[in-house]
C-alpha cells in the first residue's frame, strides 16, 4: 500500500485554494489591526431615522474583507472535514482522521443544534451561544469530552491499541501503512508511530480519557475543599481566617514542582502519605453535602434525614472504597468494591492539594464581599443560622465568578497533569496521557517531530478551549 499524503485526492482541488486564502486572510487581518491604530473602529452606527451607517473607506473595506475571508476559511476547513469524513483515507490523513472522529462530529452537531434551538430557555448556558468566543471554546471542550466518552465507553475513535507495538513501525512518519496488517486492523498509522512503534493517533485519543477522567473531578474536589473552608473563613473572619489563610499561603508558597517531587516519589507513596491525604481531602465533599442539606432542612427532620441518607450513604461507600486499597497502609474497609490504580490516586490527590488553596482564597474573598450585602443582613435578622447564610445565601450569589474560575481551573489542572507526566511522576511510563507522551517524544524531537507534537497540540487545544469558554462565560455573566 502507498503512504498517505495529508489531503489525498481532495488536495488537488482544495489545497491551491487554501494556499491562496491563508496569506490573503492573514494580510487583511494584520492590515485591519494596523489601521485601527489610526482611526477608532466605530462599527455599525444607527441613525435616528432607523437606517444604519457602516464604516466607510479602507477601514470598512478591511472589516468586510476579513469577515468574508474568515467565513471562506471556515467553509474550506469544513469542506476538508466533511468530505474527508465521507471519503475516509481517500482524502488523505485528514480524511482518515475526520472519519475516525465521525461519532464525535455527530454528537457535537446534535449538541449545538439542540442548544441553539432552545438557548432562550437555558439560562447562562444558553447565553453562551450568543458569543462567538464562547462557542468556539465550548466546541473545543466538547470535542475532547465526546472523544474521551466514545473512546472510553465504546472504544470507537482510536484505530489501534495504545500499547500494542507493531515492529518496523518505529518512528514512522504520519500516514505510513501498517506492515503486514491483518484483516480487521486499521491499515494505516494515521499520525505515525512513536519510538516504541505504537500508534501516535490512538495514544493521543486514549490520552484524552486520562485527562478527562482526572482533571474535572480533581477540580471539583478542589472546589469542595476550597468552598467548605473558604466560606467560614470569609464569613467569620478573625482567628479562624488568620489560621486558614496562613495554611493556604503556606501551600501556595511552595514551588509546585518541588511539591510534586516530594509527594509523588515512589518512596513517599510507599510511606502511605498520599493515601492519608486522600483520607482528609476526599472527606470534604461529604462534609459539604451534609452541611448543605442539614442547614436547609434543619426544621423538617423527616425530610432532612431522608435526604441525608440518600446522599451520604452512597458517598460514604465510594469514599471508603476509594481510600481503601489492598496491600497498602489503609485496609480496614471490607466492602472494597473498586480500587483506584495507585498512580492515579497519587496524581489526583496532589493535584487537588495544589489547587484547593487558590480556590479557598477566591471563595474567601467573595464571601467577605457578599456578606456586607442587604440580603445577608436580612437573613441574619430573620435569625438564620450562619451555615444556612453561607451555603444558601452567599454561595449561590457567588456562582458567576466561581463557574468562570472552574473552567479556567480545569485547564490549569490539565496543565498540571501534563507537568507531572512531563517529569515522569506518578502515572506509569506507558500511560498514554499527553504529558507522558510529550516527555517520551521530546528526546528525539529534533529528528522525529510527530510523537511529541501531536499530544502537545491536543493539550493546547483543550486548554485553549477551556480558557475561551471561561472568557465567553465571563462576558455573558457580566452582561447578566
Amino acid at each position, binding site marked *: 500500500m502507498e503512504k498517505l499524503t495529508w489531503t489525498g485526492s481532495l488536495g488537488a482541488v482544495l489545497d491551491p485554494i487554501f494556499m491562496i486564502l491563508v496569506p490573503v486572510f492573514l494580510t487583511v487581518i494584520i492590515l485591519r489591526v494596523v489601521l485601527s491604530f489610526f482611526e477608532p473602529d466605530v462599527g455599525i452606527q444607527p441613525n435616528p431615522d432607523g437606517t444604519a451607517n457602516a464604516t466607510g473607506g479602507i477601514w470598512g473595506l478591511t472589516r468586510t474583507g476579513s469577515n468574508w475571508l474568515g467565513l471562506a476559511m471556515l467553509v474550506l476547513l469544513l469542506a476538508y472535514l466533511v468530505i474527508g469524513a465521507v471519503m475516509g483515507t481517500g482524502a488523505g490523513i485528514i480524511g482518515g482522521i475526520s472519519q475516525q472522529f465521525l461519532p464525535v462530529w455527530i454528537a457535537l452537531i446534535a449538541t449545538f443544534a439542540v442548544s441553539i434551538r432552545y438557548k432562550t430557555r437555558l439560562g447562562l448556558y444558553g447565553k453562551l451561544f450568543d458569543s462567538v468566543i464562547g462557542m468556539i471554546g465550548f466546541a473545543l471542550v466538547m470535542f475532547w469530552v465526546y472523544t474521551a466518552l466514545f473512546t472510553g465507553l465504546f472504544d470507537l475513535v482510536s484505530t489501534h491499541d495504545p500499547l500494542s507495538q507493531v515492529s518496523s513501525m518505529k518512528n514512522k512518519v504520519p500516514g505510513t501503512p501498517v506492515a503486514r496488517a491483518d484483516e480487521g486492523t486499521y491499515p494505516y498509522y494515521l499520525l505515525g508511530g512513536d519510538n516504541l512503534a505504537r500508534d501516535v493517533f490512538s495514544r493521543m485519543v486514549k490520552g484524552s480519557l486520562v485527562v478527562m477522567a482526572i482533571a474535572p473531578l480533581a477540580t471539583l474536589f478542589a472546589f469542595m475543599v476550597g468552598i467548605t473552608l473558604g466560606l467560614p473563613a470569609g464569613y467569620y473572619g478573625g482567628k479562624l481566617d488568620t489560621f486558614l489563610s496562613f495554611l493556604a499561603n503556606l501551600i501556595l508558597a511552595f514551588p509546585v514542582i518541588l511539591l510534586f517531587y516530594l509527594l509523588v516519589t515512589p518512596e513517599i507513596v510507599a510511606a502511605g502519605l498520599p493515601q492519608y491525604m486522600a483520607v482528609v481531602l476526599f472527606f470534604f465533599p461529604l462534609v459539604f453535602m451534609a452541611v448543605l442539606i442539614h442547614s436547609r432542612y434543619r426544621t423538617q427532620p423527616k425530610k432532612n434525614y431522608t435526604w441525608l441518607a440518600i446522599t451520604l450513604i452512597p458517598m460514604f461507600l465510594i469514599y471508603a472504597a476509594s481510600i481503601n486499597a489492598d496491600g497498602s497502609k489503609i485496609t480496614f474497609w471490607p466492602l472494597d468494591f473498586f480500587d483506584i490504580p495507585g498512580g492515579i490516586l497519587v496524581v489526583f490527590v496532589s493535584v487537588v492539594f495544589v489547587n484547593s488553596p487558590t480556590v479557598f482564597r477566591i471563595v474567601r474573598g467573595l464571601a467577605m464581599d457578599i456578606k456586607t450585602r442587604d440580603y445577608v443582613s436580612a437573613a441574619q435578622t430573620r435569625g438564620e443560622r450562619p451555615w444556612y447564610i453561607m451555603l444558601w445565601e452567599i454561595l449561590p450569589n457567588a456562582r458567576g465568578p466561581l463557574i468562570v474560575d472552574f473552567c479556567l481551573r480545569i485547564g490549569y489542572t490539565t496543565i498540571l497533569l501534563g507537568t507531572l507526566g512531563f517529569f515522569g511522576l506518578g502515572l506509569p511510563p506507558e500511560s498514554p496521557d499527553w504529558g507522558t507522551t510529550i516527555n517520551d517524544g521530546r528526546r528525539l524531537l529534533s529528528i522525529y517531530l510527530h510523537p*511529541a507534537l501531536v499530544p502537545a497540540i491536543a493539550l493546547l487545544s483543550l*486548554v485553549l478551549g477551556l480558557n475561551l469558554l471561561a472568557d465567553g462565560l465571563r462576558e455573558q455573566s457580566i452582561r447578566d
Partner: protein
Amino acid sequence: MGRFILRRTGVLILTALCLTFIVFLLTNLYPNLEKLAKSEGNFRMADHEVATFLSNNGYRSALDPDFLAKVRSGQATDEEIEAGINTGFDARIFRNYGEWLGIVPGYVIEGTDGTTRARCATPGMDIADAPSFCGILQGYWGWSTVFKDEAGSIIGTRLALTGKLMFWVMLLMVPSALIIGVLAGMREGSATDRSLSTVSITTTATPEYVSGVLFIAVFASSAVGLKWFKGTATSAMDNATFENFFLPVLTIALYGMGYIARMTRASMAEVMTAHYVRTARLKGVSFRNIVLKHALRNALIAPFTVIMLQFPWLLNGVVIVETLFNYKGFGWVLVQAAGNNDIELLMGVSVVSVFVVLVTQLISDIGYVYLNPRISVT
C-alpha cells in the same frame, strides 16, 4: 508602614520555617532514608545494616545495642528484627532540623563501626577542628550526596546561571506584555483589542512544555524546521548567543506574558472609562496624550503586583524549560536533588525558592501600597 513591614517579615520567617520543616520531614521519611543509605552504602544492605548506617550518620536515633548484638549473632527472627527497627516517627528529626538551622550543635557520633563522624566536618577535615555549630545561620548549606560538593556552592553557581536566564526573560516579557495590554485596553472591543486578546489567551493556554516542543519543532528541528535556533541551551551556560538562548527565554516569557497582558488590558480598559479620562476627552486632549499622560500611569499599578506575583510561576517554567533545553541551572538542580533525594541540597533549593516567592509577595504588597495612595495599611 514600618510596623506593617515588620509584621509581614515576621509572617515571612514563620512561613519559611514551616515550609522548610515540611520539606525536611518529607525528605527524612524512612523509605527515603533507606534509599539514601542503600545508594551511599551498598544495595544489598540488610534492614539492620540500613538502620545502623542511618544512626551512625546522624539521620536517626541509635539502635538498642543489645538488640543489635542479637541480630548480628543471627539469633533474632525476622519478626523480631522488624519490630526492633523503628521505621516510623523518630523524635530525632527535631534535633536534626535544629542542627540544619544552626541553633543546635552538630552531632558528633562514635559509630558502631568504630569511626567517629561529625556533621560539621566536611570530608577530609579533622573532627577536632570542626566547629560545633554548622547550619544555615552559620552560612553552611550542607553537603550534597549526589554532586559530592558543598550544597551552598552548587546553589550559588546554578543560581547565577538561572539569574542570567531570568534577566533576559524579564527583559522580553515585561515590556512586551505591557505594550500588548495597553494597546488592547486603550480601545476596548476594537480589532486590535480582539486580536491581541486572542493572542494573550492563547499564550496563557500554552504551558512551557507545549510551547517549547512547538518552538523546537518549528525553529530548531533538523528534519523539517527552519533551523534558525538551536534546540539545546547547554552551550548558553558559558556563552549565551541569540541562537542558543532565544528559544528558552521566549518559551518562559510567553506563558507569563499572556497573563500580565490580560491584567494590563483589564486595568487599562477600566482607567479609560474613568471620569478624568472623559473630562480630558471633552477638553479636547488628543487621544495620544490621553493614553500617554492621563491613563498610562494609573493603569500600570495593577500589573506591577501581577508581575511580582508571577515569580513563583516563572520558577515553575524555569524548571520545565531547563529540563527541556538541557540548561543546567537552578531548576535542573531542583530536579536532580528531588529525583535523588539529596536531602541537604534539596533543603537549600527549597529555602531559596521559598524565599524568592515570599520576598516577591512582600515587595508586591509594599509596592502596591506605595504606588496606590488610596490603599492604606493601618
